């Protein structure tokens, strides 16, 4: 490696100095890092709440905190993790950093709007933090009316405003991605030569743009109702509290796909790079992202099977929900098939990819349970649902996020992370995760309702197991925080393409120069064409 030369080179990191050069940057890479710091901060805040929840549930009698406090803990855990960590997680950090690089662009289409969207997230986050510090909020992250509008005595307005503002951050990011993918691709980068990461982000952006405004207007109505009591959701004045649930889930079900689709995009990159093979069924994987985005808008009513909606509506929503299962299944099968006769490396990102596929499979299959009317009546609002969505959001989205972070860390920082520690933490996270959430499936089927501070003794054994797992998981999450920081100074110099991967992002320096490419690349080949990146083609197996 020509280390000396690399250090003198101007990169996006050393192109400007001082706080101002970061806070006023229009460089998508720097903005990606601003997001990285922000969401890491929120992840550990949400993690602290989770830790307290699990500690409390060690004992059935609720003797660590009061019910009021407990209700605030799970509410703030949900609000922080969903709106301030998971939704911005992959798109706003890795997507922001790599989407332009992967399509050979110098930046996103609207760099100033990109910076604005980071500020919106921060402002929204400040509202949420204010609400937490001032006394917290206890409505659950779902804000169901009329509890949130007429009965809760906590900081609903500040929290909802925070989510409202953060929502516009998400909308603007989505808008930026859509325009960038349409208009900023470099010569030769046709739609079907785009990496699947880009396809996944395009699909995600569609949801952000179409779904988030509905959440925004719903929150406006909730705020009006809470401040002026004008009867929009209040049955006493003729309003319909269930209408809120329809509007809320119209956004919040697709929002699950905002969290998981980008992770699926990451996994496609990892599986290809570390088996050094084109993704099996590229077109199917690409279109399944779009299919999930579109179908995701038609299934919100499966959150309302026991809300009193009509039998007929329940059946239609159950029926449609099964359609979403198919594109998800297609992805899992295609990733698995990609491994066939590949050259499979066990680098840390690939371990995360294996973990993702496994956990997402379980999360997705249990989704079939909750989409099934007869079973959902029993398991909805129990720990079964809690376990199911944590398998998707933590087992899926966070595994994908961490996998992607390890994969691209050398590109972002120019340095390698310590492989041994990273492998260990991947293993710890996988084991800790399963120990935390698998018992919750059993708890749920036994009938343990969610959001319970005090619970019958017979559930304690499984709760203790879950808490034990959570403590393992917490260690697993702290390890990357430490060794990533360590690697900034002591990590090995990475070079342009440590994984011998194919994406355009690997053809520029690590870390990349301010304008990404010294010369705008011209693409002449399909995505994931490994011929030329390594030596001779050999028959494997």
């Amino acid at each position, binding site marked *: 490696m020509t280390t000396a030369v690399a250090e003198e080179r101007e990169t996006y990191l050393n192109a400007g100095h001082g706080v101002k050069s970061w806070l006023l940057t229009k460089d998508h890479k720097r903005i990606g890092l601003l997001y990285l710091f922000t969401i890491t901060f929120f992840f550990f805040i949400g993690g602290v709440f989770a830790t307290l929840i699990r500690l409390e549930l060690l004992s059935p009698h609720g003797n660590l905190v009061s019910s009021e406090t407990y*209700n605030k803990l799970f509410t703030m855990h949900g609000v922080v993790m969903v709106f301030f960590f998971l939704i911005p997680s992959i798109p706003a950090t890795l997507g922001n950093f790599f989407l332009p690089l992967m399509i050979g662009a110098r930046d996103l289409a609207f760099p100033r709007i990109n910076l604005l969207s980071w500020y919106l997230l921060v402002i929204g986050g400040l509202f949420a933090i204010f609400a937490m510090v001032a006394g917290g909020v206890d409505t659950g992250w779902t804000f169901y009316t*009329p509890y949130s509008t007429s009965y809760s005595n906590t900081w609903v307005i500040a929290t909802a405003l925070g989510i409202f503002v953060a929502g516009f951050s998400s909308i603007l990011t989505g808008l930026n991605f859509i325009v960038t993918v349409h208009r900023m691709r470099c010569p030769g980068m046709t739609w079907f030569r785009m990496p699947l990461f880009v396809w996944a982000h395009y699909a995600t952006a569609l949801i952000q743009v179409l779904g988030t405004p509905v959440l925004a207007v719903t929150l406006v109505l909730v705020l009006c109702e809470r401040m002026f009591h004008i009867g929009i959701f209040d049955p006493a004045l003729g309003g319909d509290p269930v209408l809120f649930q329809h509007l809320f889930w119209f956004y919040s079900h697709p929002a699950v796909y905002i969290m998981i689709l980008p992770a699926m995009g990451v996994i496609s990159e990892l599986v290809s790079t570390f088996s050094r093979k084109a993704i099996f069924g590229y077109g199917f994987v690409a279109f399944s992202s779009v299919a999930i985005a579109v179908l995701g808008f038609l299934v919100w009513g499966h959150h309302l099977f026991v809300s009193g909606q009509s039998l007929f509506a329940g059946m239609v929503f159950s029926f449609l929900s099964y359609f979403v299962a198919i594109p998800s299944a297609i992805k899992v099968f295609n990733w698995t098939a990609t491994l066939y006769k590949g050259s499979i490396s066990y680098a840390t990102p690939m371990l995360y990819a294996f973990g993702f596929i496994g956990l997402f499979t379980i999360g997705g299959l249990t989704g079939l349970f909750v989409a099934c*009317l007869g079973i959902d009546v029993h398991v909805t609002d129990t720990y079964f649902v809690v376990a199911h969505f944590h398998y998707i959001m933590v087992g899926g989205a966070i595994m994908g996020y961490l996998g992607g972070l390890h994969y691209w860390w050398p590109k972002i920082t120019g340095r390698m992370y310590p492989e041994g520690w990273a492998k260990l933490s991947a293993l710890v996270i996988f084991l800790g995760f399963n120990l935390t959430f698998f018992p919750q499936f059993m708890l749920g089927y036994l*009938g343990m309702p969610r959001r319970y501070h005090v619970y019958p003794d017979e559930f304690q054994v499984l709760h203790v197991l879950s808490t034990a797992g959570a403590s393992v998981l917490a260690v697993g999450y702290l390890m990357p925080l430490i060794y990533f920081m360590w690697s900034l100074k002591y990590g090995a110099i990475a070079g342009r393409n440590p994984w011998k991967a194919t994406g355009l992002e690997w053809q520029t320096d690590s870390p990349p120069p301010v304008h990404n490419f010294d010369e705008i690349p011209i693409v002449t080949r399909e995505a994931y064409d490994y011929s030329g990146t390594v030596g001779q083609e050999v028959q494997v197996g």
Partner: protein
Amino acid sequence: MSFRLFPVEASSISAEVDQLLFFLLAVAAFFTVVIFAAILFFAIRYRRRSDNELPRPIHGSIPLEIVWSVIPFGLSMVMFTWGASVFFRERRPPDNALPIYVVAKQWMWKLQHPEGQREINELHIPVGRPVKLTMTSEDVIHSFFVPAFRTKQDVVPGRYTTTWFTAIKPGKYHLFCAEYCGNNHSGMGGWIYVMEPQDYEAWLSGGTPGATLAENGQKLFENLACANCHKSDGTGRCPDLTGLFGKDVKLADGSTVKADEGYIRESILRPEAKIVAGYQPSMPTFQGLVTEEGVLQLIEYVKSLGPNPGAGQAEGLAAPGSR
């Protein structure tokens, strides 16, 4: 401390739900094993042996894509159909079900038997007999959840929701509130006591035998002076209520509506919402004057006004018929 891995099956629907669960578990286990095994096998079999390896690209296979789309889709349609049929039975109470009225509030369950017994956070029911719950909430949304019965139904303010079950095993089972409802949400639980029929009869006749629900409703009907307009001979300013329950009512705007619990509740609290054909919207609202429990008593009273073919049927009621 008791510990179990599987909940008791205490209602007629429990075993059905569990069978459905086992089917889904089998499918899920099959796919989990296949995926895990394939990943493990490929990962070991095709592990990278030298850093310069370049496997031959395989771009995909349409037949395979079709196979692994169609088979899961077929299985999922089986799940849907099976699940929907269980749900359908779960949601449609038989006509002979024992009616129980439930009013939920932060943070307690108030239950009334037609015989007049009132319970709080406890419900005594006979084994082997279908029980239908008609439920509403005084404040926020709650959810009536009995894990042993595999049944759950949200209880929504401003409207009635119903659920039903037939207990098949005497015993004491958990009742939970499953929809988050504020501070003491996790304390809003209770017990369902399933009793042998003779024990249930004994329980019913024990305690303080007050008036029945319908009798209480009648008292309320008189106190609120409802009879001044709702005259039983059909000559009042308002429709005669005799034999009303369960009939189709013709409305002023030409539509018809079935006179069920929800309709009667609405007519008491929001009388202007549906005007019976041939009548003026002259009835004042009783919102705030009568509690949710009172409304339920009035409904039970109207129900008790069985068919009265002798009296002139109020205009707007469907042709006389026996019920």
